[in-house]
């Protein structure tokens, strides 16, 4: 992957006091996003508002679409027109986006989607937090595919991980999600935006060979096909149908096998390169708390309590949620008494922990239906239970 420096035009270098939503926008602009299409939805609207204010001044375009179906369609179109593109939404909008997230997967189009999660289902809790869309991020569109999802726990990370999301999205030509939540989205903290020359970006994998030899979906050595944009004389075709290397539809089981395996393998086989975890005091831990996003900050308090109580405890914060750190959890399952998994839902990522632990160690879930964060005592109780 070719690395380039960020365009200083989009980088608001300095120390700021920003909320997570605004930081998502600044991360996008720093990453070179010059096309934003979206539809207002609480609690993510501030990201769109900031884009609408900032992007015209850096040579980009903001368009408020008629709905979220259109927003993703416009993003994919814009990427094939040569731009980097992102949008932001929350639960109900995320549901509508699923249709064309599938198209982006099939067309191997790099787009970034931030989801400032709120409590669901349906309209649920527009103004209050949740982490209930984690499985939807992975499975929400029909068919088999893989995506990448990151989970920031602070406004600073909303900035950092949006850049990271663009880099991953361009590297693997895959929709990449920044799965934050209402708490982080509306939390104001110090956000340091570095100078442009310190921000490293991945350039799109442009094709440069002879025009008549271009095959839109021929995997390169690293599995990722080269990209072109419309208007450059390639006269290429792409479709949402199962297709061959030429991008032509081929409706049979053999082509489906190659096409779908490619979409799944390009992420799964690169999982080690993609996954980022923050681990603390894992080595002698008897209990490991696995959390992500806002819940990892609440967990800190419970972990302090546990240490005071003499429990040998370690923590893993999932910066990357999808692909899931399967290998690492498998490895640790052999060493610990139990995992504790607090999350603001009725049991989503805990299912993955359970699957990977494969009976070697139990995964104790600390559920919360949304609307507020956990009481640290509830997490502490689960830790005590796990340590028994």
């Amino acid at each position, binding site marked *: 992957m070719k690395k380039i420096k960020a365009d200083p035009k989009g980088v608001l270098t300095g120390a700021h006091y920003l909320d997570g939503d605004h930081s998502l926008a600044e991360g996008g602009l720093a990453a070179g996003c010059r096309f934003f299409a979206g539809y207002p939805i609480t609690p993510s609207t501030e990201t769109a508002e900031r884009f609408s204010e900032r992007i015209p*001044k850096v040579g980009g375009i903001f368009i408020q*679409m008629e709905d979220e*179906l*259109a927003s993703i*369609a416009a993003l*994919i179109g814009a990427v094939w027109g040569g731009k980097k593109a992102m949008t932001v939404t929350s639960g109900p909008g995320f549901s509508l986006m699923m249709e*064309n997230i599938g198209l982006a997967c099939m067309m191997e189009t790099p787009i970034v989607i931030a989801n400032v999660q709120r409590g669901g289902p349906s309209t649920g809790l527009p103004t209050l937090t949740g982490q209930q869309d984690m499985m939807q991020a992975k499975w929400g569109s029909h068919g088999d595919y893989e995506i990448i999802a990151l989970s920031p726990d602070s406004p600073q990370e909303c900035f950092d991980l949006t850049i990271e999301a663009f880099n991953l999205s361009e590297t693997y030509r895959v929709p990449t999600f920044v799965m934050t939540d209402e708490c982080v989205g509306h939390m104001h903290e110090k956000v340091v935006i570095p100078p442009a020359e310190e921000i490293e970006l991945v350039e799109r994998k442009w094709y440069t060979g002879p025009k008549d030899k271009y095959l839109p979906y021929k995997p390169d050595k690293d599995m990722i096909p080269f990209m072109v944009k419309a208007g450059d004389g390639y006269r*290429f075709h792409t479709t949402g*149908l199962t297709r061959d290397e030429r991008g*032509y539809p081929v409706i049979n089981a053999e082509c489906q096998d190659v096409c779908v395996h490619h979409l799944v393998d390009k992420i799964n086989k690169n999982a080690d390169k993609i996954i980022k975890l923050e681990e603390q005091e894992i080595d002698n831990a008897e209990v490991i708390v696995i959390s992500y996003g806002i819940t990892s900050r609440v967990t800190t308090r419970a972990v302090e309590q546990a240490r005071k109580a003499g429990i040998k405890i370690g923590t893993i914060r999932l910066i990357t949620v999808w692909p899931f750190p399967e290998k690492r959890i498998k490895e640790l399952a052999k060493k610990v008494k139990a995992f504790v998994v607090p999350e603001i839902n009725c049991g989503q990522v805990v299912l993955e922990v359970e699957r990977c632990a494969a009976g070697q160690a139990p995964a104790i879930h600390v559920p919360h239906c949304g609307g507020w964060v956990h009481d640290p005592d509830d997490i502490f109780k689960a830790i005590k239970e796990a340590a028994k």
Partner: protein
Amino acid sequence: MKKEDRLEEKNPIESLLRMDRIPHIWCPGCGIGTVVTSFAEALHKSELDLDKVAIVSGIGCTGRVAGYVKLDSFHTTHGRAIPFATGLKLAHPELKVVVFSGDGDIAGIGGNHLIHAARRNMDIMVICVNNFNYAMTGGQVAATTPKDANASTAPYGNFEYSFSLPYLAEAAGATYVARWTALHLRRVTKSIQEAFNRRGFSFIEVITPCVTLYARRNRLGDGLNLLKYYYEKSEIQHGADTRTLDISYQGKLIVGKFVDKEKPTFLDCMNEHLAKVLGEKYQLYGENND
């Protein structure tokens, strides 16, 4: 004589087709191919750089057009061709972007996108092939099926009102609106040529025969019978009031060019407005952006 040298084996619009994908999937008597021919002729006659023309289709019989035309071509999801085209056009304003899709795609599932792109006066051309039913899935009733016509999901006849597409497009803000039938091939070509020369949201409806489903189910005969119907019942009325263009079952078909006006496009409005408000801070979009 070798097969490829025989005149009848050569397609006159071959240079604009992906010949490695021919034969196409359309039924004998279908009108979509003739609209593609008109489109190709319009492209030949235009002086456009064909590398800068992109075509976007949705899903359905007409949705397959993008797959056969040798341009940068995108076969997208059902109903979303217009917002996809919106993103493509805005990202790369130098492109001429054409949406080529069916009535179900454009006016049914994608109806909301149609009116909003027209409202914004997005600089794209929409060619909407109207065959009065959802043909790819087996002839179901559509938003364009005339009242009383029979369809596989209206087995007792359709009792819903149907859309008049030119009326809808004009009301929503389109700056070029025409309707023709598959019989009016030269007129279709001319309309597409004209629309290529306009800036703004162009909407061209072409009524075409669906022999396999709509015609068979309604016992209307074959493709020739439908062309005869178009011949007998169509009436050219340029500039007709679009409120008068309703289509009744086997009734009169008013065709022609109804709207042809100039209005600043989305990008014109955006650039003018932001330059006024932001002054020097604003770099005109679409200039030095590609």
